[in-house]
C-alpha cells in the first residue's frame, strides 16, 4: 500500500517508562532508565527517526555550557546563569546540572565522542560567556547521533520511529497513565500505557515565521513544532515563564547560527556597519539581543559577524567546523551568495520567536529531579524549564529524568485511564481527514505564524496583543471547523499546526500576565518598560484550570549560591560605552 494513505486503526501497547522524543535528551533518558532497571521495558517514541532527529541531527561543534573542574565551578556557573536570567531561576536544578555535567562529558567520551584537549591533555575550554569559561569544542562532533544510537541498540531500548505523540492520558486521581500517538505515514493510532512518561520533544521552533517566509527555514529543527508544550498543557501540567521568548542572532535568511561561539574564541566579533563592536559579549541573552535590535534600528546596522581581520588559516579552520557539523549547509549558502569570510563579513539578523529553555528560560515546569507538576510525568531538554540548558543540559537532565522516572515506575502500577479520553482524542486527530472540503494545514499554519510575527513579536504592545489574540481565535475556529488533511503526511502537519496554535495562545497569555519588562528583548513590554522587582521578581506558571488558560505567580526558590548586589545587573551592561 502506498505511503501516506490513511488507515483508520487503533492499537494499544504498554511499557514501564515511555520516553517521547528521541533527539538529544530523549536517548539519554531512555538509556539511563533502562540501565537503572534492565528488566523493565523502555520505549523511545520519535516523530522522525532517532538516527537523525532533533537539534543535533548533523552533530554539534561543541558544548556551550561545560562546567569543567579547573576552569569553572558549579557555584560560578550557577551564578552566571542566574544573572543572565535576571535572577528568575530556581538554582537547585541549575546547580545540580553544574555538578553532574562533568560526569556526563566523561560518559559521552566513553561512547566515542571526543572533546578538544590541549597539549597537556587537559580540556581546551574557551571563554564566550560574560563571566566564566564554559565552551568546549567537539572535534568529531558529527558523530554524536551515531554514538548515541549504538548505545540505544546495545541496551535494547525499543525504538518506535515515525510516531507523533499527540496527547497524554491520566487516571482520575491525576497520575500519568500513558500517551496517545499517530503514525505519521499511515495515520494509524497507537496508545502506549506507561507507568512513567518523559517528555523530550524539543523547542517550539515553528511559532514565529522566519523573515524569508519559508515555513521550514526555522532556527530550530522544524520537526519541533511545540507538541510537548501543548501536550503538557492539556494534561494539566504547569509551564513556567513562557513570556521569556527565544530570539537568536542568526545569519540573515539562512537563519542558522553564524556561529559566534565557534568563531569568537578565535577573535571574531559582532560589529555594526561601521565595523565597530557595540556589545561586550557574544553570549546569547535577552539583554544582548536588545542591544542587537537597537543597533539594527539605529541606522548603524546591518549587524555583522566580523572575521575578515583574522589570518586566512584561522578562517579556514573556522570554516572546516562551520561547514561540517550542526548546520553544514552554511557553506553552500555563503557560496551561493559569493560571500568569502576572508573578504566579507557575515550579515546577521534576528530570528523568529520560539519557546526554548536551551537558549532562554521558559518551559514545562520541572524541579531538580525533572519532575513536572503531574505525578509520573517528567520533562527534559529544550522544553523543560531549566534555563540555558543547551546540548549538555539536555543530556544531563535527560539522565536525571530517566533515573527518577524508572524509580517511579518501579514503585507504581499502571494507572487506569478513561477509554472515553482516547475516543475523544481519536475524533480530534482524525477530524481533518473526515472533511470533503476545507482549508489545507499549510495555509492555517502560515496565517497563524504570520499573526505571531505581526502581533506577538517584541516589542510587546498590549493593544497589539489583544488584537492578535482575536485574529488567532478566528484562525483557530477555521482550524477546528474547516481544516482538511487528504493523506497521512498532511495529517501530521494538521496536528502540528494545532500545537503551534496552542503555543501562540500560551505565548500571548503569558506575555500579557507579566506586567513589567524583563530579559531584555525577550519580554520587552512597551506599556511596562521597567523591570519591577517589587511585584514581578517571581516565576509565572501557566496551566489549564477548569478548561481555561490561567497564569499565577510562583516565588523564586531561595538561592543556593548567593548573588551580591553589585553582580546582579552584570548582564544589563551589554552595550559598549562610547569610547572614541
Amino acid at each position, binding site marked *: 500500500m502506498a505511503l501516506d494513505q490513511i488507515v483508520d486503526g487503533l492499537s494499544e501497547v504498554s511499557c514501564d517508562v515511555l520516553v517521547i522524543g528521541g533527539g538529544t535528551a530523549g536517548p539519554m533518558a531512555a538509556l539511563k532508565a533502562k540501565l537503572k532497571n534492565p528488566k523493565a521495558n523502555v520505549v523511545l517514541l520519535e516523530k522522525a527517526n532517532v538516527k537523525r532527529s532533533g537539534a543535533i541531527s548533523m552533530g554539534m561543534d561543541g558544548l556551550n555550557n561545560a562546567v569543567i573542574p579547573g576552569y569553572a565551578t558549579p557555584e560560578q556557573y550557577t551564578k552566571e546563569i542566574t544573572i543572565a536570567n535576571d535572577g528568575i531561576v530556581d538554582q537547585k536544578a541549575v546547580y545540580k546540572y553544574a555538578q553532574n555535567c562533568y560526569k556526563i562529558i566523561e560518559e559521552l567520551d566513553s561512547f566515542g565522542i571526543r572533546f578538544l584537549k590541549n597539549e597537556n591533555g587537559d580540556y581546551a575550554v574557551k571563554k564566550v560567556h560574560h563571566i566564566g569559561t564554559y565552551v568546549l569544542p567537539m572535534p568529531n562532533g558529527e558523530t554524536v547521533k551515531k554514538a548515541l544510537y549504538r548505545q540505544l541498540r546495545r541496551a535494547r531500548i525499543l525504538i518506535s520511529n515515525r510516531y507523533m505523540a499527540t496527547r497524554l492520558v491520566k487516571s482520575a486521581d491525576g497520575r500519568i497513565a500513558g500517551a496517545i500517538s499517530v503514525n505519521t505515514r499511515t495515520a494509524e493510532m497507537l496508545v502506549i500505557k506507561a507507568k512513567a512518561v518523559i517528555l523530550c520533544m524539543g523547542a517550539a521552533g515553528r511559532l514565529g515565521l522566519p523573515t524569508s517566509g519559508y515555513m521550514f527555514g526555522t532556527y530550530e529543527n522544524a520537526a519541533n513544532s511545540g507538541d510537548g508544550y501543548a501536550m503538557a498543557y492539556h494534561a494539566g501540567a504547569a509551564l513556567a515563564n513562557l513570556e521569556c521568548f527565544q530570539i537568536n542572532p542568526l545569519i540573515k535568511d539562512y537563519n542558522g547560527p553564524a556561529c559566534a561561539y565557534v568563531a569568537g574564541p578565535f577573535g571574531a566579533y559582532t560589529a555594526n556597519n561601521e565595523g565597530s563592536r557595540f556589545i561586550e559579549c557574544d553570549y546569547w541573552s535577552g539583554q544582548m539581543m536588545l542591544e542587537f535590535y537597537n543597533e539594527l534600528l539605529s541606522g548603524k546596522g546591518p549587524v555583522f559577524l566580523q572575521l575578515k581581520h583574522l589570518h586566512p588559516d584561522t578562517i579556514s579552520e573556522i570554516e572546516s567546523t562551520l561547514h561540517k557539523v550542526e548546520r553544514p549547509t552554511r557553506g553552500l549558502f555563503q557560496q*551561493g*551568495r559569493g560571500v568569502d569570510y576572508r573578504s566579507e563579513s557575515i550579515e546577521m539578523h534576528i530570528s523568529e520567536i520560539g519557546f526554548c529553555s536551551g537558549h532562554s528560560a521558559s518551559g514545562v515546569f520541572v524541579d531538580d529531579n525533572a519532575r513536572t507538576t503531574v505525578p509520573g510525568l517528567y520533562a527534559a531538554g529544550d522544553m523543560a524549564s531549566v534555563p540555558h540548558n543547551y546540548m549538555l543540559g539536555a543530556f544531563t537532565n535527560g539522565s536525571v529524568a530517566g533515573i527518577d522516572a524508572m524509580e517511579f515506575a518501579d514503585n507504581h502500577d499502571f494507572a487506569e485511564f478513561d477509554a472515553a479520553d482516547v475516543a475523544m482524542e481519536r475524533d480530534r486527530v482524525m477530524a481533518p481527514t473526515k472533511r470533503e472540503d476545507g482549508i489545507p494545514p499549510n495555509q492555517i499554519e502560515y496565517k497563524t505564524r504570520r499573526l505571531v510575527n505581526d502581533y506577538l513579536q517584541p516589542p510587546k504592545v498590549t493593544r497589539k496583543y489583544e488584537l492578535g489574540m482575536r485574529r488567532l481565535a478566528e484562525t483557530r475556529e477555521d482550524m477546528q471547523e474547516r481544516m482538511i488533511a487528504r493523506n497521512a*503526511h498532511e495529517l501530521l502537519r494538521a496536528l502540528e499546526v494545532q500545537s503551534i496554535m496552542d503555543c501562540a495562545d500560551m505565548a500571548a497569555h503569558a506575555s500579557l500576565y507579566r506586567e513589567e519588562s524583563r530579559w531584555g528583548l525577550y519580554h520587552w513590554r512597551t506599556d511596562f518598560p521597567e523591570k519591577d522587582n517589587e511585584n514581578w521578581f517571581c516565576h509565572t506558571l501557566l496551566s489549564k484550570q477548569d478548561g481555561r488558560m490561567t497564569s499565577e505567580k510562583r516565588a523564586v526558590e531561595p538561592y543556593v549560591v548567593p548573588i551580591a548586589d553589585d553582580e546582579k545587573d552584570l548582564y544589563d551592561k551589554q552595550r559598549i560605552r562610547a569610547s572614541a
Partner: protein
Amino acid sequence: MPLASYQTSVPVVVDDAKCIADKGCTVCVDVCPLDVLRISDMTNKAYMAYDECWYCMPCEADCPTGAVTVNIPYLLR
C-alpha cells in the same frame, strides 16, 4: 472551496542514475527529520515529495551512492 495546486521548486534533487531505490534502498526516506522524501511509484527512485525542508543534510550524508544533493530552498537562497 476548491483547492489549487501550488508550484514550487524543491531544494533536494536526486540523481536517478545513481539512486538504487529500485534495489530496495530507502535510506534518505528513512532518515529525513521532516519526512519529505518518497520513492516514486513511477520511476522507483527517491524524490522530494513535499517542499518542507530544513536543509539539514542527513539525506545527502547518508545516501550510499551519493545520489542526493541538498540545495538551499529558493526563498532564502
